[in-house]
């Protein structure tokens, strides 16, 4: 557990971090370090330079404006889980963050690091995809945003460019009549999600007017399940079960704890339960 030699730089601003990234080939940004450092200790990552962005206050914090919530990339899971703003406007994100690791992990780990690392068992990605969130990036040539659904590209692969920093995510606040839930089937060893099901439904006048289900852990990236069949229904248990059973994964992930087939099965069960929980909250 001894990393290879590396240089350490601490950035005092986003701009400084960006220029350090430009100056140092193969450098890695470090936020909470909870994914990067284990990779380095196992020598799976051997960056010559680590750029610590952990103290950039400009990238921390949670706010709400004009019907959307904004979470800075360096905001910790603990702050997200405890956020009043999110409790009022987007509780499902806080719910998912509260499921991450343990208190120490939540105190160090950040939302930006979590999604930039893009572990398939992470709790945050399916929720962001469900919400239709956007991920905001900054590079020396400017800023851009990308839809969460396009951000996650493959196992540990995202749309973050080599010269970019993830600055914040934005998600629409959940409106009245909308309920959402995140349910996690935890891996007993790693604590990551074997399956994490994020669901939302909107109910108006006893009828469903919108529904979404995204399942993490089954594939390399979050799997969106088409649950449009729920729209117009009264969200009966049967309708929900039928909708959730549409989960399909071409090449599901498997390990010694849970095979691909089993993950898909649990994804359906948890999808169903998450939808039912969302309905009960709507």
């Amino acid at each position, binding site marked *: *557990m*001894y*990393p*290879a*030699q590396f240089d350490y730089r601490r950035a005092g601003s986003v701009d400084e971090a960006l220029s350090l990234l430009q100056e140092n080939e193969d450098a890695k940004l470090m936020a909470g370090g909870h994914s990067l450092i284990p990779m380095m200790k*196992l*020598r799976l990552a051997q960056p010559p330079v680590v750029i610590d962005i952990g103290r950039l206050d400009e990238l921390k914090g949670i706010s709400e404006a004009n019907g959307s919530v904004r979470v800075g990339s360096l905001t910790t899971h603990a702050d997200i889980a405890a956020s009043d703003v999110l409790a009022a406007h987007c509780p499902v994100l806080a719910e998912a963050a509260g499921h991450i690791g*343990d208190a120490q992990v939540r105190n160090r780990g950040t939302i930006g690091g979590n999604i930039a690392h893009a572990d398939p068992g992470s709790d945050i990605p399916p929720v962001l995809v469900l919400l239709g969130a956007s991920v905001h990036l900054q590079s020396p040539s400017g800023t851009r945003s990308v839809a969460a659904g396009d951000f996650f590209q493959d196992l540990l692969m995202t749309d973050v460019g080599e010269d970019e920093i993830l600055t914040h995510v934005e998600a629409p606040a959940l409106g009245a009549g909308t309920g959402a839930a995140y349910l996690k*089937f935890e*891996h*007993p*060893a*790693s*604590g990551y999600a074997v399956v994490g099901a994020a669901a939302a439904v909107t109910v108006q006048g006893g009828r469903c007017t919108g529904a979404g289900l995204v399942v993490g852990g089954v594939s390399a990236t979050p799997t969106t399940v088409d649950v449009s069949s729920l729209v117009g229904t009264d969200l009966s248990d049967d309708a929900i079960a039928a909708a959730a059973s549409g989960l399909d994964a071409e090449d599901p992930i498997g*390990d*010694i*704890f*849970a*095979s691909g087939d*089993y993950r898909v*099965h*649990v994804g359906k*069960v*948890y999808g169903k339960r998450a939808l039912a929980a969302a309905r009960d909250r709507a």
Partner: protein
Amino acid sequence: MARVLGTSIKRREDPALITGRGKYTDDLKAEGMAHAAIVRSPYAHARIRGIDTSGAEALPGVLAVLTARDVAAAGIPGVVPVGWLLPDLKTPAHPMIAADTVRHVGDAVAVVVAEDRYLARDAADRVAVDYEPLDAVADVVAALEDGAPAVHEEAPGNVAFDWEIGEREPVDTAFASAAHTVELDLRNNRLIPHAIEPRAVLASFDSSTGEMTIHMTSQNPHVHRLLMTLASLGMPEHKVRIVAPEVGGGFGSKIHHYADEAIVGLCSMKLDRPVKWTATRTETNLTDAHGRDHSTRCALALDADGRITGLRVDTAAAMGAYLSTFAPAVPTYLYGTLMSGQYDIPAIHCHVTGVFTHTAPVDAYRGAGRPEATYVVERLMHLAGEATGLGPVEVRRRNFVSPDAFPYQTQVALAYDSGNYGPAMDRALEMIGYDDLRSQQASRRDNGGKQIGIGFSSYIEACGLAPSAVVGSLGAQAGQWESADVRVHPTASVTVYTGSSSHGQGHETTFSQIVADKLGIDPEAVEVIHGDTDLVQFGMGTYGSRSAAVGGSAIVKSVEKIIEKGKKIAAHLLEASAEDLEYEDGSFRVAGSPDRALALGDVALQAYLAHNYPDDLEPGLSATSFYDPANFTYPFGTHVCVVEVDTETGSIDLLRYAAVDDVGNVINPMIVDGQLHGGLAQGIGQALWENAVYDESGQLVSGSLMDYAVPKIHNLIPFELDRTTTPCPHNPLGVKGVGEAGAIASPAAVVNAVVDALAPYGISHIDMPLTPEKVWRAVNA
């Protein structure tokens, strides 16, 4: 003076540990210390064609790179020995550093010493080993098949030993005429110990004196010194000092003598400098001796009344690539001898094949053989309850050894000295609210959804290892007594030097309670020293739930000798006869004349002044004892587990866990409860989560904590504990031992509960660990 035995005084060890001031091996620094990194085989089986060390040696700061060639050149024995011999045991050599063949992933092939540990790691990556990969076999059953790759030429068919206990014929007869028989094929899953502190060693050789001090993670420093000097380094025993500083758990894994510690010793001798090595978590997983790993076929015969008439057990037990220190004893004398459980079984036969596999060695791990035996017996008892229609409670009760049958001679060598099994079962049923639970279960069954199940485990164990002559006759290459030197200082405070070697158990607290109680003094006036071969007389160490029963008894013996001597001194001072003196509450008194008394301090002072002193008595007030127990001790109890099974996903939730244990007299109830909590966590972990998995090529797939699931606090529930007390009749404290009970009893209780929940699905067995996927597949089979 209030009694201190039986009270939950707080652990005196804890202030240092919880404020981070405890010093573990890795915390130690020595002047001029260098660091070792061990180069390990990535293959389960390969021939070494050559090793090129030049790339590593070329790195500035690298001090040495040693291979098997250097071990040979050093002219030392250079092997890692096995310390328990069975008849016809195959004992192929286990070289400290593999010379021409590697036999498991993690086998040491070279060592690099450098100025710092990062550099050592960098250099280790540059040692180029030319391997010719060979076929490997990691599975205990596959290793016995015809044509399986051979682990050692000396062991045809990969058989290390073939052992049996009990008689086959009466068992066959019992089965032939049985009214009911139940049988089971089971696996006892391989476990990785996971002490929170990885193994570590700091070896400091000094050529000017020819002495070496080795600080290391040891449960038994004297045994380590003996094996290290005799078999590995070839140094004179008296020139080596082994110190176990704070040791962060062992569970057996730090009993054994490993290649790594010897390699680091050799490095220090070569360089004439202190050298330190601390295993990474990956290394501990690859090289700590693992536990369990059995494949067993077993069957029970019962008569029409549900009385057991015969038990048959046939086990293949993995030994791994080499025979670890006590490995052959674990699936034999610590396993086959336990097959009678709490029951009066007239005919038992147990056959065990020890099997070499291309894996890490397997040796004693918390419970060592007894969890495996309990699992066999208690799983069969569950099935017997179903087959006879008596249910799990009545079938057990009917077969308990009756309280008036003690001492009870089993059919498998052990003679239980004492026991009273019914009351523990009664109390467990009462705690759990058994009848109520059964009606809840029935209504769940009617309504569908999550099912609940109730599982029992009425276990026996044999601990307090052990009468030396008995273990000697069974092949142990060591005695199993324990030593204690108790010294009363002139001011009547006391220092105890114990051969036990605490590594988390709290001996400093409990042993001070023993002395304080016997001498009628404050426990704070007693210091306990352990874990240093230069300070402490030879001792056997801590494992096998032996420290209170054997180490504690040695302390009592010494205290008794001190009181006897004190009486002579007091008699002289009081001008009385020693026979008329009694010792009570810290004072020597003349019987019948309460005002003629001397405090311990008065007598102690005089013992050291020797001014006014009996002619025929030596000065000083200390005594050393070597206590060899008359028998094992036999803790027992009944555990009940209640689970809820989500049949849709196969997930299992623990709802209740009640344990009624009889560990004899209790020295410190809080510490006893703590031992049970830890043992239960490990046993429940084995049942539900833990599994060391090798793939077909012999790679350890569960090599990190990302894949190997050690129980976490939020996976567990509050345990409901109670006790019955049947004192051990043959040791002076009446104590039996508690360190392993939780791990021994619980796997069977958990599995029985899950199988009970799933009875409506026709499920009678699922192998541990009961992962949700396995349960779900069984439900949907």
